[in-house]
C-alpha cells in the first residue's frame, strides 16, 4: 500500500494554480517536497489532508480517498507539523496535550510526556515563551504521540539551527525506518532533504517538475565544468541548466550523454534543483 497517491491534483486560486500533478509516496519511505517559497508545498499538504478543497484530481491517503467520510478516521493515523506556530500563545505544552487527547482517540499521554522530556520542553511554560526550535519540537512531539503511520511535515526544519535540524531529521529517519510508516517533508533547505529522503519531488511555481528516487536523480545528472566555448559545442538537448561566468561555465547535463573529454562531477541535490529551476527561468 502507498502512504499517499495523488492523481491529477489541481487547485486554482485567483493568482496561482497548483498542478495538475501525480505523486506517490510508498510506505517505509521519506519523500522530500522541494520548492521555493510560494511554490505550492503547503497547499499540497493541506490538499492531502483535505484541509482545503481541491478543484480536480484524486488523493488517496493510507488507502482511503481523502474526501470520503472514512478519512476522518484515517486522520487519526496522520501526524502533522506545520511551518507556522498555530498554537495559541497562552497555551502550555501540558494544556496542548489535554486538548489533543480529546482530538485523537489513540492519544498516548505517556508517549507525549516522554517526547517532551526528550526534547527538554517544560510542560508548564507558555507557548509564547518557547523559542522557534522549541515550538517545532512541540509540534513534532504532538504529531508522534497518537500512533501516527504517516508524518506530514511542512517546513518543520526551517529557521532552526543546524544542531536542532540534525536532531529532528534523525527523529524522522527513525520514524520512517518502520515498514508501515512514511514521511512527507516539505522544505526549501535541500541539504536537509538530501540527508534524509528516499524520494524527491520538486515543485516549481505550482507545477511538479520531477518526482523520483533521490539516488536515481543524482545518478542521472552530471555537473559539467568547462569553458564557455566548450559548453557551446555541447548538444543543447542534454543540458538542463547552465551558468556561464567570466572564467568558466557550469552545466547540469545528462550523465550518460556527457562528453567524455570534459570534466563532469557528481552534483549535489541542491545543484540539480537549482539548475532545473534556472532552466525554467531561461
Amino acid at each position: 500500500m502507498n502512504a499517499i497517491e495523488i492523481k491529477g491534483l489541481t487547485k486554482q486560486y485567483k493568482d496561482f494554480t497548483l498542478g495538475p500533478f501525480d505523486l506517490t509516496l510508498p510506505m517505509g519511505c521519506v519523500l522530500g517536497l522541494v520548492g521555493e517559497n510560494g511554490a505550492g508545498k503547503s497547499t499540497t499538504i493541506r490538499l492531502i489532508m483535505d484541509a482545503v478543497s481541491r478543484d480536480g484530481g484524486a488523493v488517496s491517503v493510507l488507502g482511503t480517498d481523502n474526501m470520503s467520510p472514512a478519512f476522518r478516521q484515517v486522520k487519526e493515523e496522520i501526524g502533522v507539523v506545520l511551518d507556522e506556530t498555530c498554537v495559541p500563545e497562552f497555551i502550555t505544552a501540558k494544556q496542548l496535550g489535554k486538548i489533543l487527547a480529546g482530538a485523537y482517540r489513540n492519544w498516548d499521554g505517556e508517549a507525549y510526556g516522554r517526547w517532551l522530556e526528550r526534547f527538554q520542553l517544560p510542560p508548564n511554560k507558555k507557548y509564547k515563551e518557547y523559542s522557534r526550535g522549541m515550538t517545532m519540537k512541540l509540534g513534532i512531539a504532538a504529531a508522534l504521540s497518537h500512533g501516527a503511520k504517516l508524518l506530514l511535515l511542512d517546513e518543520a526544519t526551517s529557521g532552526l539551527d543546524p544542531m536542532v535540524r540534525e536532531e529532528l531529521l534523525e527523529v524522522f529517519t527513525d520514524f520512517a525506518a518502520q515498514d508501515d510508516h512514511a514521511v512527507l517533508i516539505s522544505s526549501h533547505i535541500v541539504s536537509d532533504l538530501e540527508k534524509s529522503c528516499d524520494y524527491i519531488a520538486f515543485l516549481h511555481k505550482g507545477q511538479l517538475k520531477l518526482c523520483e528516487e533521490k539516488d536515481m536523480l543524482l545518478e542521472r545528472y552530471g555537473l559539467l565544468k568547462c569553458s564557455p566555448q566548450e559548453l557551446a559545442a555541447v548538444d543543447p538537448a542534454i543540458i538542463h541548466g547552465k551558468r556561464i561566468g567570466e572564467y568558466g561555465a557550469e552545466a547540469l547535463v545528462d550523465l550518460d550523454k556527457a562528453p567524455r573529454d570534459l570534466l563532469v562531477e557528481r552534483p549535489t541535490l541542491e545543484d540539480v534543483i537549482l539548475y532545473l529551476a534556472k532552466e525554467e527561468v531561461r
Partner: protein
Amino acid sequence: MIALLKKDIFVMDKQMRLLVVLAFVFLLLPGTNGLGGAYAVMISVMIPMSTISYDERCKWDRYAAMLPWTPRQIVGSKYILHYGAMVMSMGLIVVGTYIRALYSEEPVIWGELWQMLGLYVVILTLLAAVTYPLLYRFGTERGRLIMVAIFAGIFILVLGSVSLMARDIGRALDWLATVPVPVLAALAGANVLSYHLSVKLYLRRRDGRYA
C-alpha cells in the same frame, strides 16, 4: 468538540477571571443598577468573539483542519461557547443580584429579574445568529467593526429595556412572556440556520475564497 471548548477555556482563562470579577464589581457596587447586567451580557459575547480573534491570529484553524475534527465541530464549538458564556453571565446576574439584596436590604423581585434575563437570552441568541456568519465571512479584522456596532446595539437595547421598565414595568417583556414558544422557536430556527451558514462560510474562508 469538548477538546475545542477546552482549548478556548485555556486561552481565555485569565481574561475570563478578570471579566467575571469586573462583572461582580458592577453588579455589587451601589448606584450601578442595570450596568452590571449589561456588562455581564457583554462578556458573554466578548468571550467567544475573542477566541475567534485569537484563532485567526495564531492560525489555529489551519492546524485544527488537519486534526480529526469536522468543520461542523469547529464552528459548532463557538456557538456552544457562546451559549455557555450566556448561561454563565445569567448566573452572574442572579448571584450578583441576590448578594446585593442581602446587604442593601432591598428584596429581589424575582419576577422582574426572570423577565429581564429572558430579554437578555433573546438578545444574546439573536446576536449569535447574526454575528457568527458575519465573523466567518469577513474575519475578525472587519468583524471588530461589526462587534463595535453590535455592542452599541446591545447598550441601546439594554438601556432601552431599562427605561421601558421604568415607564411601564416592561410592556415589551410582558409581550415576550405571553409568546415564549413562538419566540423561542424563531430564535432556535435562526440559530440553526446561522450555524449552517457559518459552516459554509468557514469552508469558503478556509479555501481562500475570501481575502
